């Protein structure tokens, strides 16, 4: 039982990455938090990881706003249309 709670930094970091995407299991989170008690470095890593995720989420929101208006220009569409018609007739 106690052996299972002991994890290496490598495992801790892997769980930490997963938990950024809400994919760590409950048990893994317990393991991680116990590891934090005795490892300052991983605690730091985790905090920075959370920060990084938040940064990316901001970017994600920005991108979504931008993407709504983003598509091919009418000119490009027209060109593709003609190209398809040409090739379709040939077939």
């Amino acid at each position: 039982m106690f052996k299972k709670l002991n994890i290496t930094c490598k495992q801790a970091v892997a769980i930490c990455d997963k938990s950024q995407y809400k994919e760590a299991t409950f048990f893994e989170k317990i393991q991680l938090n116990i590891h934090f008690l005795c490892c300052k470095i991983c605690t730091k890593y985790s905090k920075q990881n959370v920060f990084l995720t938040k940064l990316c989420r901001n970017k994600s929101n920005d991108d979504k706003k931008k993407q709504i208006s983003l598509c091919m220009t009418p000119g490009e569409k027209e060109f593709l249309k003609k190209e398809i018609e040409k090739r379709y007739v040939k077939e």
Partner: protein
Amino acid sequence: MQKLDPNKWIDKYSDYLFKYTLARVSDYELSKDIVQDTFFSALKSAKNFEGKATERTWLVSILKRKIIDYYRKINSKKGKAEVRMNFYNDGDNEGDWLEERVPQTWDNMAEKQLENKELQNQINSCIDKLPEKYAMVFKMRTIQEIDTDVICNELEITSSNLWVIIHRARTQLRRCLEDNWFNK
């Protein structure tokens, strides 16, 4: 029985296919090329269309193929110079942090920093510097927030593969931020 109507493809599907592609490769020009390529391949294999699925589903399945092809291509070219992992691999120290890779202290890592426009630009340029295959997977998971198993299916990789890529992407991003922002 469904029938294909290629003359209407552009009006009906180009926006959808384009957005779908852009979400995955995040490059405007490249997305255009892939979408165009998809339409042309679809024309070529129009004979094989059996009408079992709708036109749109059929086109999307071709598009997915194209995206995988693209991913494979960048995967074989780039990323050969692998990042060393952060940890010792032998002896008692297995799984511990290597001294030189230890995360450094980030000054003013405060919540309000998150609103900082310059920091936002910095992270953008850091993401752009990632090797293409890392960037693609990382962006799909973190920015487009696509589910892990969907990404694994689409790119035909295993989930442990995906987590290694995510970890490496994150490691490089932290280093990039450390060099260009926090310890400047």
